[in-house]
């Protein structure tokens, strides 16, 4: 380009213009082709995500049983959801699940990933990762049934407790008002730990080994390395892990539905379960949609700070 401009001939200018037109045409065509490629995905996204998203908001202002005529009721559905018994309790349950679904898998995941990364890079590391990731692959319904057996009064966990002389602790874990939510939380740890480990370990492989080397030359311990290098450089991955797992906790449905269905006595009920019962069992689509919208707002409020914090650190 520079060479062309230095010549006194008129042709280069014309050539430049035509090249510019050619370039912009090419860019435009490439953009067009690019859009064509994304179109199927975009259509699917709009049809299965955006349309239901908007419809949910619309439904939340109507009284509707899913089949019959719809009646506009304004914000009445939002008022109604506050009358759902123990609604505040279900939200509190969801926050308690954040500890189990999010904090423990991310915290434990950091430690396990770090250990695997440091001491077991070979086949053993791969096997460990696979075993820990397996719960993500197993169908949750099957897992729910197995966990139900394990946690039952005659189940394996209580048998183990009796064997080591802790018979006094045995109970029907999923049927106990005080322990059911934590038992479900344990299942959540089992499901989500592998996901966090794989994500965090992938992040660790991107950290420059020279940083660890220099730290070691300076006499840093494993724990100091972990605090000063691993965690700060993994902030972005930790952010992703936290975001996904916090949403999994606040919008939890499947893990709870297959283990306790919200029982005993609403002690493991979460907004997701209430939305399902309202929409599917009670056929009250309006209140179900209103609760879904409120849950979304709640999740956004919780997720927003996590997103901002990790964005800043990424820069």
């Amino acid at each position, binding site marked *: 380009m520079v060479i062309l401009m230095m010549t006194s001939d008129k042709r280069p200018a014309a050539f430049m213009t035509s090249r510019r037109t050619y370039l912009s045409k090419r860019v435009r065509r490439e953009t067009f082709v690019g859009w064509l490629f994304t179109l199927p995905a975009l259509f699917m996204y709009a049809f*299965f995500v955006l349309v239901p*998203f908007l419809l949910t908001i619309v*439904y939340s202002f109507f009284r509707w049983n899913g*089949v019959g005529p719809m009646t506009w009721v304004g914000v009445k559905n939002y008022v109604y959801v506050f009358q759902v018994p123990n609604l505040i309790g279900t939200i509190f349950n969801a926050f308690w699940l954040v500890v189990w679904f999010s904090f423990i898998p991310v915290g434990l995941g950091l430690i396990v990933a770090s250990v695997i990364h440091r001491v077991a890079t070979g086949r053993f590391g791969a096997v460990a990762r696979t075993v820990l990731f397996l719960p993500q692959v197993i169908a949750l319904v099957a897992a729910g049934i197995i966990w139900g057996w394990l946690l039952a*009064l005659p189940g394996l966990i209580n048998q183990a407790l009796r064997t080591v002389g802790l018979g006094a602790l045995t109970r*029907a874990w999923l049927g106990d008002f005080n322990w059911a939510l934590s038992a479900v939380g344990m299942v959540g740890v089992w499901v989500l730990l592998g996901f966090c480990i794989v994500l965090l370990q992938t992040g660790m492989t991107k950290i420059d080994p020279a940083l660890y080397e220099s730290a070691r030359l300076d006499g840093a311990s494993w724990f100091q390395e972990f605090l000063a290098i691993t965690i700060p450089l993994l902030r972005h991955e930790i952010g992703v892990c936290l975001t996904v797992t916090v*949403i999994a906790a606040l919008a939890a449905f499947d893990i709870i539905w297959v283990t306790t269905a919200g029982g*005993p006595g609403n002690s493991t009920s979460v907004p997701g379960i209430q939305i399902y*019962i309202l929409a599917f069992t009670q056929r009250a689509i309006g209140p179900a949609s209103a609760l879904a919208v409120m849950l979304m707002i709640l999740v*956004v409020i919780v997720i927003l700070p996590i997103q901002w914090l990790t964005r800043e650190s990424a820069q």
Partner: protein
Amino acid sequence: MIKKTVLYSLVSLLVLASMLLSSCGAPATTEVPATVAPATVAPSTEVPTEPPATTVPNCGTDPVVMKVTFETGWDMPTQLTEEFTKQFPNVTWDISMEQFANLITTTPLLLASDNPPDLIRLPTMVSFAQDGLLLNLDNYATAFGWNEWPVPQLNQNRLDANWIRGSGTLYAMGLNYSMTGVFYNKTLAAQIGMTEPPQTVAEFEALLAAAKAAGLQPIMEWGSAKSGMGLAFPLQNLMAAYGLVGPINDWIFQKPGATIDTPTNLIAAQHLEMWIQNGYFPPDINAIEYTDAASRFGNGEGVFTFNGDWQNGGYDAAMPGNVGFFLFPPAEAGGGYAAMSAPLTYGIAANAKHADCAAFFFNWAATNETARQINVDGMGSNPGGPADASVPTVAAGSVTIDTLSAGPKLSGAMDFIANATSSIFAQGWTPELQKMVAGEQDAAGLLKAVQAEYEREISQ
């Protein structure tokens, strides 16, 4: 750059939000078929077209493919269709199976679809009839003479002008009529000195105490939220023992002003509370699922269990010749016997292509000798039908002999208190009874909480 970051954040949040809503809001949205635009649905007051009643409807002679939806886990209806095809070879069946829990959610969508089922297992019926999705069966009832059958059979499937069950227009039929009561392990019952079924509630309670004293599990029952709380069975039996059947049915049928919070129901709930406190139920009942309770009883854990005759086959297989059945006794000796007895309800879609053939099938299932035998062999329930219909044979030693012979002793039949509204079981009885098991709810509080939930749901 900052602006761009904020933009990214907002975009990613929007994506997150829409993912969340589409997952949480899915029940409200994706389940609605595009063909059912709310505005085009017939208003609930519109009466569905009635079939002509000039001749007795039948399946004709041309090839017919019946589209049907049955409940997963029960082979009997499918066996009936196979026998039907043997007798009427022009009729074949396109059968789809659904779990009962799924039926609650999918039935309205199936009924409202362009190609609705000719025959479908109905989990509930009032709201579907109200939405004009179910065929009015009155003309078929006249044509086939169903109205002459013993009265209680059809009444639970009738709806009056205010959509209250118990009388009026027929919207569904029962393939059979279940019987509920108390099953007992004959060996263990003999061990605690039970020589004949108890005649009063007090006698039954004495047996429970004897079982407890003997170190046996007095009652095996399920109670997890996944299965729904099984204590609703003994509670309703106690309600009918101490009070009248009529007001309980009024409450179930949502008659205006009906309440479950009555003085006699309080006595019933107090008895149940006492049974819980005395340790008559398993300590882990809140975590026991229906199938676990059935298999634990089958393995000899529990002298008694409250259940229905749909489990006869399972009990007979687990403990051949060792299972007995009796109706829950009245409070006073000589009082009438009452039990929950509900039809295995099937309906015909309002727009079904082969409604006549489906109605003919209903009539055939209740009157044909082979069909009645398949019915009893498959589920152990009473196949209903006319008073003079053939009596199916039952294998010696089967508990089905007990459950079938209990029918004539009944002086009052009730639907289930768990069926009063579509979610009273999930939102009312199950959590409140589970609380009672854990000592967090008492008898009075239980009835008040359930009544409040009932009123809240009806108002919606």
